């Protein structure tokens, strides 16, 4: 910022405008309402919402990777599967599956560390397929492992003595907790120094490196966080299905969902994946009895959006109404009026 001559009202820089505080209040109210839903609606509604929260978490993390760190991964399903199997193994050893979710997130994150050393040195284009190779290798290793049930899959133990209604409510809260933690974590990460590093890398990677931005570290942190979050989502997935099947949990279809949701909603904004998830579910419900058609339509829409509306639906909304629910940029308040300097 340039030092300005002394004036009656000095310039100020803030992270948000006043309206953002109301956003925070509205967010807290929304979470409270969502948290009370198991008391208010039938289990089939919360069941749908569990899947929605899982997808929201995954799409948010994928957007963190692609939209902010420029890392296009089509192998995040590796960490979903690792998280799911971690919960299975921990529950088998007597830990409550719900308490196992954070441990599963940690396990996925720890697996991502050595993988990131291999993957992050690749050019961005090759990073994409290499993540896919890692996911395939993990799948093939699981298929060969008899203790994990091989190709037939594994059934989660430790929840059978729980009342089904209670189990569904707990599952719902776990899914909500993971989604909220993902959104909040992404928001805080982007407002931290790492977020600033990522912005610099996005604008000019070589330039950022030359002024001392820790490029490898910033990307490594994002990759770790995305893997850990995918692990937590995988943990919720096995709890909600009580069963894990390797070819479905490690399916590249997960990547398709995340990518389509993030692309349609809007890449590079926290709000985008939320919008995208809602659209995804509406499309899926409308076309539920038409087999693979919803993926064909969704894929075509995502391709067209990527080509013609790269910032997605949220990009259109936020441009039109100058709206930001999760302000991660800075606002400059000069003597008069408000000017936004960075988003």
């Amino acid at each position, binding site marked *: 910022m340039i030092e300005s001559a002394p004036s009656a009202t000095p310039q100020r820089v803030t992270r948000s405008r006043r309206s953002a505080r109301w956003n925070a209040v509205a967010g807290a109210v929304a979470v409270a309402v969502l948290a009370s839903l198991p008391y208010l609606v039938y289990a089939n509604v919360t069941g749908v919402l569990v899947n929605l929260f899982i997808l929201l978490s995954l799409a948010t993390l994928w957007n963190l990777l692609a939209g902010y760190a420029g890392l296009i991964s089509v192998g995040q399903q590796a960490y979903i599967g690792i998280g799911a199997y971690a919960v299975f193994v921990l529950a088998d050893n007597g830990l409550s599956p719900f308490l196992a979710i954070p441990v599963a997130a940690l396990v996925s994150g720890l697996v991502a560390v050595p993988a990131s050393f291999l993957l992050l040195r690749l050019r961005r284009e090759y990073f994409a397929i290499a993540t896919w*190779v890692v996911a395939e*290798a993990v799948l093939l290793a699981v298929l060969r492992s008899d203790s994990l049930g091989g190709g037939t899959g594994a059934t989660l133990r430790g929840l059978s003595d729980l009342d089904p209604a209670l189990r569904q409510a707990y599952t719902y809260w776990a899914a909500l907790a993971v989604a909220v933690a993902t959104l909040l974590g992404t928001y805080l990460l982007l407002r931290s120094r790492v977020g600033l590093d990522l912005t610099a890398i996005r604008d000019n990677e070589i330039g950022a490196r030359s002024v001392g931005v820790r490029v490898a570290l910033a990307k490594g942190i994002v990759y770790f966080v995305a893997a850990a979050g995918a692990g937590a989502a995988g943990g919720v997935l096995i709890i909600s299905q009580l069963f894990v099947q390797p070819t479905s949990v490690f399916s590249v279809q997960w990547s398709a969902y995340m*990518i389509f949701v993030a692309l349609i909603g809007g890449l590079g904004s926290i709000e985008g994946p939320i919008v995208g998830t809602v659209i995804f579910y509406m499309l899926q419900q409308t076309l539920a009895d038409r087999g693979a*058609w919803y993926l064909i339509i969704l894929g*075509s829409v995502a*391709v067209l959006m990527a080509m013609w509306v*790269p910032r997605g639906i949220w990009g259109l909304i936020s441009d039109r109404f100058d709206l930001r629910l999760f302000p991660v940029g800075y606002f400059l308040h000069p003597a008069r009026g408000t000017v936004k300097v960075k988003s």
Partner: protein
Amino acid sequence: MVWVNAIVQGILLGGLYALFACGLSLMFGVMRVVNLAHGDLAVLAAYLALAVITGLHVPVLWSALVVAPLFGVVGYAVQRFVIQRSLDVSPLTTLLVTFGLSIVIQNVLLEGVSANSRSLPTGWLASASFQVNSQLSIAYESVIVFSVAVVVLSSLQLFLSRARLGRQVRAAADDLEAASIVGVNVRHVYGIAAAIAFATVALAGVAFGMYSSFDPAAGPQRLIFAFEAVVIGGVGSLWGTLLGGMILGVAQVLGAQVDSSFGVLAGHLVFLVLLALRPNGLIPARLA
């Protein structure tokens, strides 16, 4: 002798992977585009070949002569109307768009031809082989595919180094702006490169359909094999790609020799180890 047999089969299989990979390598070398729908295009080509074979009652090798030029035309169009537009948005958009295309192709095939796995009828070729000795026999099929791969790679190399259009392709790959200043129609040249890439992937798809069965979801694995061959050999080097394909093929066949379910995983592991040790590939070179 079992091991010698495995190595020979692996090398021949490597030819197929190199055939797969050269389109991927070319598109990356020229346009910096990694086509994530590469494998699905190969599967699509195999289904088209099947339709040609059953519809026109021609042998499998003739079907390739129909499918490959058709794919060349499609490739030119896809490059001009889809990939070029994505390139103009940002390089990363090409990844997202081709990934979207991959999912769309898979699901259109799923709707259109069902999830059943199919294979191309090869007639007398299926069982024909020549016996080197009692334990080593080589199928004609694999020799044909390997020879096609070598011929395609050699002609591609010749085209790029000698032909006028090939030189324009290299110029566009080297320096886009300088090439357009001296009169190269870059968009057309990109279209030509994509047309060649699509035609080779169609050939590879037909060849793969002769080797093994395929279903609508088989594309990603083919993409991964092609990609592994490219990276092991060294990005942008056509002969490196052939070497990479052979290493991958040998690793898979040897792995399968140890345990039948270990083959593909062994290939992935060799790839990951080589990636850790030689991130620039065994023959780091530029295509252009």
